[in-house]
């Protein structure tokens, strides 16, 4: 009995120190520095623009990665093809690779001396220090999440339901929409939420390829850094607080969605 409580206490304590401590510190600092100052920083046009840029990146990267994640998961679980193991491993690459390295490789690839850089600048398309490279960086770092959620669910449901749908006259496409997708919907939703959270929080890769131009290519996380460096601590904490609040909302969404999985 005592042992059970000891384990629980240790686990809770760990969470408190590692996660909740820093987060509550954020609330505290905003309060100390002055909520008014934080509000001013938050309503600054450059900050609002930074949030807009972040949302744009989310709006482009999340749908694309959702589509890609579902297709890759279906390929990994349902198909047999050459290089499947390689694909499976590559999907996880962004988890292992530091975002800074990702940013640097994109920088080199699309830079003036890179493989693709000259072609794009020749056609008048600005990739680096503009939205295209930031989108690429965001997509790269958030690729694995939908696939990683969907793969185990697909394995678990097996393919008998899909075979049954075929024998009942459903085409491959009809089977996907009516049987497969409804069966994996909670895994997809969960994957989308995690992907969104990852995109919102991305810093390293985007920091390198965007150039952090105020009011242009600055994202919310880059803005936090900017305000901090300008010694506008209240502003920096305020923006962080908004990002943290979004993360907490995401967390609540995930926990309320999870139990429904057991019912369906």
């Amino acid at each position, binding site marked *: 009995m005592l042992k059970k409580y000891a384990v629980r206490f240790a686990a809770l304590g760990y969470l408190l120190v590692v996660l909740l401590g820093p987060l509550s510190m954020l609330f505290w600092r905003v309060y100390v520095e002055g909520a008014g100052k934080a509000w001013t920083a938050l309503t600054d046009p450059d900050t609002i623009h930074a949030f807009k840029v972040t949302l744009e990146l989310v709006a482009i990267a999340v749908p694309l990665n959702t589509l890609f994640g579902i297709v890759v998961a279906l390929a990994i679980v349902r198909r047999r093809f050459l290089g499947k193991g390689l694909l499976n491993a590559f999907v996880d690459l962004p988890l292992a690779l530091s975002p800074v390295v990702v940013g640097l490789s994109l920088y080199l690839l699309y830079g003036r001396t890179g493989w693709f850089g000259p072609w794009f600048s020749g056609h008048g398309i600005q990739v680096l220090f503009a939205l295209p490279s930031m989108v690429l960086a965001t997509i790269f770092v958030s690729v694995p999440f939908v696939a990683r959620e969907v793969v185990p669910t697909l394995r678990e449901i097996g393919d008998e339901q899909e075979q049954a749908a075929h*024998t009942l006259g459903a085409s491959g496409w*009809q089977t996907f929409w009516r049987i497969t997708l409804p069966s994996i919907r909670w895994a997809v939703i969960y994957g989308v939420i995690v992907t969104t959270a990852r995109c919102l929080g991305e810093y390293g890769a985007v920091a390198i390829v965007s150039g952090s131009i105020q009011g242009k290519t600055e994202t919310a996380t880059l803005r936090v850094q900017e305000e901090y460096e300008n010694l506008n601590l209240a502003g920096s904490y305020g923006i962080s607080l908004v990002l943290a609040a979004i993360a907490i909302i995401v967390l609540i969404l995930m926990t309320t969605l999870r139990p429904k999985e057991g019912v369906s």
Partner: protein
Amino acid sequence: MSIQVRHVSKRFGNFQALEDVSIDVDGGSLTALLGPSGSGKSTLLRIIAGLEQPDAGEILLAGEDATDSPPQKRGVGFVFQHYAAFKHMTVRDNIAFGLKIRKRPAAETKARVEQLIELVQLQGFGHRYPAQLSGGQRQRMALARALAPEPKVLLLDEPFGALDARVRAELRLWLRRLHEETQTTTVFVTHDQEEAMEVADTIVVMNKGRVEQVAGPRELYDSPANAFVMSFVGQANRFGNAWVRPHDLEIVLEPNGSTREAQVERIVHLGFEVRAELIRDDGEGFSVQLTRDQAETLELERGQIVYARPVKETVFEPGSA
């Protein structure tokens, strides 16, 4: 609709699941594919449904080559051992699936679903999800779902294998009646010879990817084509080259010219019948089926020495098994 299987072979890696299998299933018949696990019976059924592609050979449905047509074009109903229920749909939506895919009018679909719910005795369960049903109910729902689009062929892969003995017995009887009503060509896979004998008109006995014999239940038991069929369909004892059914042995207390000496090892009472398990002088065991009266008259007991005489024996040509 008749089914013809012509010289079908199928390999999975190193495993030869089917080897040059040919069978004819008459339209309107009720056929069992019977065999031990790994005999290829399920693979054959899945090939007929189009869920597997044969490596060689052809499948003819109603006389037309269907080898290359996908399952959704074959007009077959398929029932899986583990039901394959659509978990995110209610019983009603499960049954309606094939009709909705065919874009039948809503009123017609609704009426047909209600009719099927009644047929499979799931009244009052239409709004439930598969997770809220028992195994037997789920399988009845799966049957209704397969029957909804009025398939010309009904294929069942060990349909009662996952159910307990009582439910299994009920569903067997029910399948038999259903077939009498609808006269749909039906093929089901089973490893249970009793189930095959009880339900089917025709039994295809399979072993190691080949067909051993195709016959009615009675013919299969009385004139098995080879030693495998003899021993797989019903019990059989081996006496040298000859095979003897347990009920074709007579037990006497005194030896005469044609008897074999044996010792009683165990007496098993099975209600009306009594099964005696004996050991021959050469150490081989065999069993004899007696009526209760016979056993009582003989006053058999464990350790007793008796003499067995085959009343009827079957000898197969060497190499036929």
